[in-house]
């Protein structure tokens, strides 16, 4: 079963072709990692999938529905959600309110639009559940700007989950984390992948080869290879373009 079906996707910035005629099917199961040397067009590809950028050519189908060029708030409604490489939170709100913002929209708030938000019990309950699952319930009342970086990354993930997605795209979930924090996030991602389709853009090779079911290698905006972790590790082209240089 395919989840994403991508046909001839192309995006140019002036003379630079950041994504070059990518055609690809992504299945519904497991964790897919997107890797590639710097400037390979990973982030552009990611932004195209999540509606942050509009493609110049090509189509994106999600579960058979055309989502090409849809705006972020529309993409969300198909069941796609994303986290951010640079943590993107509502800095002046508490941790709990950060989650509430998403939850209240997902639960539908026409009927409680003008209710005091701290009295919206259904929202609070769902938000606390999410925080508990992530192990952050004890931080609920702290300002989001004041908690440690690792927790902020997890909060970013929690906020992404508030939209009830089936597919979640993570943009460099490991960026700037310590070893202990990396372990915590890895466990969370594994847990998440039991219930969600997870697509990751990541530089951290330990994570990529440790947990991915599939790996997609991009190079100069085009697909270089796709396969299981073992296949990619053994692929000479990939080594030449990417791994070899990285080791050296």
């Amino acid at each position, binding site marked *: 079963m395919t989840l994403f079906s991508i046909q001839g996707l192309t995006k140019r910035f002036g003379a630079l072709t950041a994504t070059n005629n990518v055609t690809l099917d992504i299945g519904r199961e497991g964790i897919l990692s997107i890797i590639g040397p710097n400037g390979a067009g990973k982030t552009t590809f990611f932004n195209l999938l*999540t509606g942050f950028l509009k493609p110049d050519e090509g189509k994106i189908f999600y579960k058979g529905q055309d989502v090409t060029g849809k*705006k*972020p*708030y529309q993409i*969300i*409604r198909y069941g796609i*959600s*994303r986290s*951010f490489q640079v943590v*993107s*939170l*509502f*800095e*002046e*709100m508490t941790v709990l*309110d950060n989650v*509430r*913002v*998403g939850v*209240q*929209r*997902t639960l539908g*708030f026409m009927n*409680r*639009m*003008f*209710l*005091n*938000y*701290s009295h*919206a019990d259904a*929202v609070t309950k769902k938000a606390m559940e999410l925080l508990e699952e992530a192990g952050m319930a004890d931080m609920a009342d702290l300002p989001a700007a004041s908690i440690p970086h690792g927790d902020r990354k997890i909060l970013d993930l929690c*906020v*992404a989950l*508030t*939209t009830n997605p089936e597919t979640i795209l993570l943009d460099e979930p490991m960026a700037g984390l310590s070893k202990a924090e990396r372990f915590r996030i890895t466990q969370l991602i594994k847990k998440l992948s039991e219930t969600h389709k997870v697509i990751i853009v990541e530089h951290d090779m330990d994570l990529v080869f440790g947990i991915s079911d599939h790996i997609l290698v991009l190079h100069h905006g085009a697909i270089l290879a796709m396969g299981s972790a073992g296949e990619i590790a053994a692929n000479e082209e990939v080594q030449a373009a990417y791994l070899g240089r990285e080791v050296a």
Partner: protein
Amino acid sequence: MSKIYKDPLFWIFLGCICYPFLPYVGNFTSLGTELLLWFIFTLSFNLCLGQTGLPSFGHGAFYGMGTYAAAIVFLRLSASGSFVLPILGGIAVGAVAAAFLGWLIREKRGVYFAMMTVAFTQVCFGICFRWDEVTGGEAGLSGISRLDFLGIPMRDPVTFYYFCFAVFVVCAIVIRAISRSCFGLSLQSVRQNYIRSQYLGYNVGVYKFAVYTLSGAFAGLSGALYCLLTQSAFADILDWTKSGDVVMATLLGGGTVSFYGPIVGSLIFIICKNLLSSLWDHWLFIYGLSFVVILSLFPTGIMGMFRKKAKKKD
């Protein structure tokens, strides 16, 4: 309900009730009424600036259009002698104008948003200042009188003051309820991180449009009451410098961090404008300089200075 004493609004309301009985200033009833109207206007303005982060630097447009709408409704349609009809006219025109502008510029941000609103208010100013046939042009509109409302004579300034006070109470409670509601939380999310809001499924443009319309309705209401207060309408309230006063007062008071900031700010501005000016002609020099000094030391304004203290109390 001993909790009510902890509510700042309670003390603000109490202060407003006592105002006409205060020594010296109490005699200036129209000053007090103007203050109440400024409270309503700046609170509604802060729904845009402080809550949603919309730099609506031409917000005076909706206030001024409310004033003109009330005057025109009174002079042309109010043959029935209704007191409420001009006010409703002001609200409607304020809301419609804000909805129109809000829809046009719902995707604009920052400086561009601000300047589009300034352009709008200047165009309104031009229309009111020059379209002699309808708006009276430079001479403005006059001859509006306050009729009886439910048998109560509004001609008396003190009665009208308490009528405006009642309107202010309703508006303040409603606006605070909005800013603390789920809708208000969504608006805050738009201000703090509009990209993330979009990725939570919010159609940010529509929210900006909605809050802008709402705010325009309140601004139109206060403008209509201002028309009844001065019993006239002049185009100078539509000039962009007047809108600038509102933004500065709100920011000075601390509207970006506190719901009560606009009230503090308009209190300071109106007192300076009306009392300080009677002592020294060049009061604007002091006001302008204090604005610069306070804001460069405390970018979040006067309420921002007290914010840390208040947080510890909670």
